[in-house]
């Protein structure tokens, strides 16, 4: 006892890593958000600290209506996505759907494709002078409009129902088939079995999917910006308030940002205290058996899936086709060739280069930080780890445009001036896309046997060397598959890029947005095709490497 006093506090490697990670997160997440918070309680109209912006928000229809619109769009998108996603998940897990694997990959592809490309494609199809719209007119019908709230919900739903599908099918695959057999054995009919046993058991997973859809809708900027026209939702309003050339009001934009973040936080809190509590731990001893349908029945079961996935993939197809069509200024087709690609290579080469350079640099940081952070979260549990966990996941509730504003306000004055640099773009990518890699790294590490590390230490390899030679080496596949998802979302990033870019640091996604606004469809389509193909190739690589076991959600 005399030999051992209290355990000494030593500054070991992991303490340093924790300190550096927390400092970096504070600097690039907490500090920007803090500046937004402080800005939101000031105004040019009133002296001192004031709630003027917030009172204005809740009294002026121009402002509060945007919140109502956002909630309206989110709510109905969640409803529609569930109505599509759950039945598809059921069909896909329980029946021998034709080309099941391909369908599964297609769903994930449409989820991972850049969201605003969906909106843009549907404009090509159903917008003014749209291809399909013309078809309707020729048949003497009125084409449904893609603009406004209906269009936003439609495009959101086709883009986001895969979340519901992925969460639900995950739960359905892990449900023990003896549960349903027990219900059958107790005399329940098939439909009532689904209603009384299957659905309640998978409900928490469906709700988790709904949450993802809701949060993505609430934060998304591109789709409502392109389709909304007069229908201004909250993220678009933030952009207008901050960027519009006539009357920029950073104070009001900050207040609006705070409102969005509060909405997201409320949804997250709801999830934590309502959904999480009802999650059932399931150990599937006997996973459900796939029912073998034949002939017409099999076609009938496959058909709804094919229709939905066709609609969801249509934007990518349209964009790729459109990219080869040369048009005159009046919009007449001049020919099928590569002129659009020649144009973008000449005019927008910087954007293309920026997208790949920024994303690549970001991904290097994401992988490095991801491995360290995942290790701390799983193996060095404690108060510091929980704090890091919270900070890392914070960007989930901060929409990209809000983080963009935060970074601008925080770093446009001394001591640190980053606005207009490539660094600030890369920082925003790292901060926002890190969660994918950390999530997949921690999931992988949780399943890894901790005794393997102890075995290495026991055999004489010091802990730190063990981490680099054994642990990090073994975590790599998990981290890499997350990193590819981070990479895909980086190259497709619009909502913070549009806030942060300058002429020199503009990216493909920003260019697409500008080209669409400028009505030059051809170049936008060519740029979109580049992004879409990069996305598809990256995803196929992950599928290949992980043998189809990639976890998107």
């Amino acid at each position: 006892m005399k030999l051992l006093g209290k355990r000494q506090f030593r500054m070991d490697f992991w303490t340093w890593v924790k300190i550096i990670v927390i400092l970096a997160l504070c600097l690039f997440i907490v500090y920007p958000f803090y500046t937004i918070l402080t800005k939101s309680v000031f105004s040019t109209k009133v002296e001192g600290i004031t709630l003027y912006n917030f009172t204005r928000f809740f009294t002026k229809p121009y402002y509060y209506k945007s919140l109502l619109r956002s909630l309206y769009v989110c709510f109905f998108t969640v409803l529609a996505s569930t109505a599509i996603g759950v039945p598809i998940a059921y069909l896909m897990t329980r029946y021998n759907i034709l080309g099941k694997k391909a369908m599964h990959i297609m769903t994930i592809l449409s989820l991972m494709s850049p969201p605003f490309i969906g909106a843009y494609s549907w404009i090509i199809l159903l917008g003014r002078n749209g291809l399909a719209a013309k078809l309707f007119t020729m048949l003497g019908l009125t084409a449904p409009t893609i603009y406004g709230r209906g269009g936003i919900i439609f495009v959101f739903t086709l883009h986001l129902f895969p979340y519901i599908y992925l969460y639900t099918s995950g739960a359905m695959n892990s449900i023990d088939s003896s549960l349903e057999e027990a219900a059958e054995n107790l005399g329940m009919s098939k439909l009532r079995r689904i209603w009384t046993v299957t659905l309640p058991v998978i409900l928490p997973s469906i709700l988790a999917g709904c949450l993802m859809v809701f949060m993505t809708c609430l934060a998304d900027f591109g789709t409502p910006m392109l389709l909304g026209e007069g229908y201004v939702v909250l993220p678009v309003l933030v952009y207008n308030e901050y960027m519009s050339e006539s009357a920029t009001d950073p104070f009001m934009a900050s207040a609006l940002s705070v409102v969005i973040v509060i909405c997201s936080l409320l949804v997250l809190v709801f999830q934590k205290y309502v959904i999480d509590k009802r999650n059932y731990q399931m150990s599937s001893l006997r996973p459900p058996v796939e029912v073998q349908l034949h002939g017409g029945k099999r076609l009938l079961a496959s058909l709804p899936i094919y229709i939905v996935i066709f609609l969801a993939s249509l934007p990518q197809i349209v964009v790729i086709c459109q990219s080869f069509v040369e048009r005159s200024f009046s919009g007449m087709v001049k020919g099928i060739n590569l002129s659009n690609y020649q144009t973008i290579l000449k005019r927008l080469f910087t954007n293309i280069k920026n997208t790949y350079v920024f994303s690549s640099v970001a991904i290097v940081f994401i992988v490095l930080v991801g491995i360290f952070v995942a290790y701390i979260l799983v193996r060095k549990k404690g108060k510091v780890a929980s704090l890091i966990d919270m900070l890392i996941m914070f960007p989930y509730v901060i929409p990209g445009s809000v983080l963009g504003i935060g970074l601008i306000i925080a770093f446009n004055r001394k001591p640190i001036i980053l606005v207009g640099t490539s660094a600030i773009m890369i920082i925003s990518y790292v901060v926002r896309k890190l969660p994918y890699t950390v999530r997949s790294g921690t999931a992988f590490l949780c399943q890894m046997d901790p005794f393997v590390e102890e075995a290495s230490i026991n055999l004489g390899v010091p802990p730190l060397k063990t981490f680099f030679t054994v642990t990090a080496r073994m975590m790599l596949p998990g981290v890499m598959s997350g990193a590819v998802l981070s990479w895909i979302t980086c190259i497709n990033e619009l909502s913070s890029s549009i806030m942060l870019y300058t002429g020199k640091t503009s990216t493909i996604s920003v260019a697409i947005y500008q080209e669409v606004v400028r009505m030059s469809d051809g170049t936008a389509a060519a740029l979109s095709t580049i992004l879409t193909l990069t996305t598809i190739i990256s995803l196929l690589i992950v599928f290949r490497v992980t043998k189809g076991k990639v976890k998107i959600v």
Partner: protein
Amino acid sequence: MSNHVTIKDAVKRYGDFTALNGVSLDINEGEFFTLLGPSGCGKTTLLRMIAGFNSIESGEFYFGDKLINNIPAHKRDIGMVFQNYAIFPHLTVKENVAYGLKARKVPKDQMDAKVKEALELVQISHLADRKPNELSGGQQQRVALARAFVIEPSVLLMDEPLSNLDAKLRVQMRSVIKKLQKRLDITTIYVTHDQEEALAISDRIAVMNEGRIMQIGTPSEIYAKPQNPFVAGFIGVSNYLDCEVKPDGKVNIKGELDLNIPLRRQYTGKAKLSARPEQLFFTATGMPGVIQFSTFLGDFVEYEVLLNDGQSLIINEYTKDHSEVYENGKNVFISFDPLRVSLYESESQEVLSL
């Protein structure tokens, strides 16, 4: 070099919970020493303290004369076999076994020779280039063993190494481990909750419960002379009967039977008698009872006998002594082997019998 291991007054706390409450051990050089106890008794905690994976709150741990309390885990020079083997999944069998030698910077030619010899000892030379996921449980176990002893550690630790194997393989690996340990003459500390395994494999056993050592002894000592009711109940099967030691030294059971049990000291008052099923007999006179149930188990028959006061006892009768199986409902008289049963004070649970 093999070492003797001394542990003085080891204590481990997790918050308010005391996992290890003052444990002292002396383990001889080359001894196969087992920590045996139910889950949560502190045996794995103690093993991990020796390995350096659990901090030592208080107490002194020695290998030979060297205090190891403050030596980090990777410098303790201990071989360890983990419950789930903890084979490196990204390395081949050969690379797994060579891992510890590499850490010790053993020259390449020596390393190859040592790895080869170790693989031969555990009879898996033919698997040298396989990856762990191509191995069965028993083969992985052998890799884990080879990896642990190839570094010629001063002490070998094993944490329930057989618990993930099926029953037949467990018995087989038990003798592989035992023979290997004797051949290599490494001081070995083995953790298990399986009393049969402990009896079969150990030179000495420490029976643990609730963070304390209940008894240390050879397998036969622990089985034959349990020092307290916990050990009597944990190792093998025991019948407990309330009784009273009278002033004349006789032990009276339920007012029905007097036994002459030799006591280690003077005592009168309430006591508890523990008797194993084979320490009870059917006799012409003795305690009356009725046979309730019999189970024929080949070399013996196990009877459940109901006593007058409603307690039931388990009695084994060997078929080589009696070929007849008694019918249920038969009235019998029971007697005890007074030299082999154990007697404890009721209050303190201290042992009274010799």
